[in-house]
């Protein structure tokens, strides 16, 4: 099933021709309207006209999150404020948030891409979409909302939080599609269980989960506990918001990035060099239809790989692999690169361990230490010390085997690890670097 069959299945030569045309016009526009791009292209000695093929894209300089911060709030906007109808901002965990503006056409493009994403995930007109992404400056809530409306589904704009009410509404309103962060979906399952509500009896069929990296093992966990098909969605506010890329329910193998609107590249995050198909590196995206704030070669800091292999669903758009993490979420522990999602994959592979965990990184003398806090569920609990100690040792050993990093597993009381109703906080880094 497609929302826009013509564009979603455009043969590659036609798709690439369209990309080039749209790229060229975007470059002309930013060069003329955004002083930052004029300065950055001039500094690199490049005029937009040098781009005569898609391969020429790599001649252009990158745009970084820092560039956006330096232009705070509206410096990178390419359209006059009179044409901007919506403003969103990123969570800005460090310093000022990054601000993005949308024209009317941007909102309609975003809605269409989100509607396409819903259909790719197996949703359709007639579905009742329970949208538990936060509404507000964060793009999640409104992005999914407009897409659901464009699709013609019934959207419940419940936003995040008040989990008991969420569960009641899912039950009473007969929600069929759930959209939220993956960690929040598991928190809901836990709350539902405590309330005596059986997720298997709800009408939920599909869950569309994003805004934080998650693992294949967590997918299995969610699918079992919530009794639905869990689909990974990708987006970031700088590029648009949710709906930049989505898994198709047919394959659930990689996320189709809507290439008629975005050009993806994978680079080595240290050198900036372009990597080839299948190699893991940092995802760089160029927007080719955005009017409000077009970004050229934006470094997403997300680590993934790209494949152009045809997909069984019939979409011709390239797929990015499940994110292994954000390059700035990556922890370097005694020289070993560790993504929280890798630890999560190990933990959910151990029977009885709840996927709620916290990583605490510290430095003793000159040595980094990693402590993994794991909650002791009823299923794991034994009244014999040796059994619990064996469990800690098993967690330590499996993490060591899989990631090559030594850690201390610490068992903690249930529900003491902070639950998040938005993006889960998984790491406390106490190192003073």
């Amino acid at each position, binding site marked *: 099933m497609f929302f826009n069959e013509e564009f979603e299945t455009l043969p590659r030569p036609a798709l690439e021709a369209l990309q080039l045309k749209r790229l060229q016009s975007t470059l002309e526009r930013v060069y003329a309207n955004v002083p930052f791009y004029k300065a950055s292209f001039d500094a690199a000695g490049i005029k937009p006209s040098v781009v005569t093929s898609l391969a020429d894209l790599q001649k252009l300089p990158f745009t970084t999150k820092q560039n956006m911060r330096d232009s705070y709030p509206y410096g990178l906007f390419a359209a006059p404020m009179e044409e901007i109808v919506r403003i969103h901002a990123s969570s800005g965990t460090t310093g000022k948030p990054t601000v993005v503006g949308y024209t009317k056409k941007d909102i309609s493009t975003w809605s269409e891409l989100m509607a396409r994403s819903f259909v790719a995930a197996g949703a359709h007109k007639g579905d009742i979409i329970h949208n538990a992404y936060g509404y507000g400056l964060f793009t999640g809530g409104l992005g999914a909302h407009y897409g659901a409306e464009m699709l013609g589904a019934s959207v419940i704009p419940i936003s995040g939080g008040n989990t008991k009410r969420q569960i009641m509404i899912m039950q009473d309103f007969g929600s069929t599609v759930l959209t939220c962060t993956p960690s929040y979906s598991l928190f809901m399952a836990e709350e539902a269980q405590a309330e005596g509500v059986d997720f298997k009896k709800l009408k939920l069929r599909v869950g569309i989960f994003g805004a934080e990296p998650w693992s294949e093992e967590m997918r299995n966990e969610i699918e079992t506990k919530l009794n639905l098909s869990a689909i990974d969605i990708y987006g970031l506010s700088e590029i648009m918001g949710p709906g930049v890329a989505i898994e198709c329910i047919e394959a659930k193998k990689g996320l189709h990035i809507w290439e008629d609107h975005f050009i993806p590249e994978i680079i080595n995050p240290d050198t900036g060099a372009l990597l080839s198909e299948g190699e893991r590196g940092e995802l760089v995206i160029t927007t080719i239809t955005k009017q409000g704030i077009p970004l050229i070669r934006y470094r997403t800091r997300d680590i993934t790989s790209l494949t152009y292999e045809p997909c069984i669903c019939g979409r011709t758009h390239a797929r990015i692999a499940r994110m292994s993490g954000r390059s700035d979420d990556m922890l370097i522990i005694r020289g070993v690169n560790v993504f929280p999602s890798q630890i999560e994959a190990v933990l959910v592979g151990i029977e009885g361990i709840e996927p709620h965990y916290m990583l605490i990184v510290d430095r003793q003398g000159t040595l980094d230490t990693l402590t993994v806090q794991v909650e*002791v569920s009823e299923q794991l609990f034994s009244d014999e*010390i040796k059994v619990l100690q064996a469990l800690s040792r098993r967690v330590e050993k499996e993490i060591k085997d899989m990631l090559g990093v030594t850690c201390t597993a610490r068992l903690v009381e249930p529900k003491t690890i902070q639950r998040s109703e938005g993006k889960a906080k998984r790491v406390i880094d106490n190192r003073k670097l």
Partner: protein
Amino acid sequence: MKVEQISIFIENKSGRLAEITRILGEAGINIRALSLADTSDFGILRLIVNDCAKANSVLKENGFTVSKTEVVAVEVPDRPGGLSAILQTLDREAINVEYMYAFVERCGGNAVIIFRFDETDKAIAALQAQNFNMLEGSRLYNM
């Protein structure tokens, strides 16, 4: 012959034991015997109480991880070699003691030791064969 014991997982941080005893106290639950096994990070509090089901539910409501275990309460003659005789019987039958803890019975002069065995039924049979006295759960709970 089996006695119900509840075990509670506690993190090794201040106030947890106080919290549990407060919850039990407020629920009107009386503690009959207890032992605390601890490591540097966590401990397991094992309790015999007058109302096991209620203790289990109030602690769970308060977010604790609780499990029920069957243990055996054996009366130990209060004289040199009293405990040794019991342990020798178990040893002959190759029964392992997972853990044990003692408390002094108020009504009689004997001590009572709570045992957790790897094979509870086999242990009961072996002790009965040697005429060791084991206390019924109901007697302990209502002591």
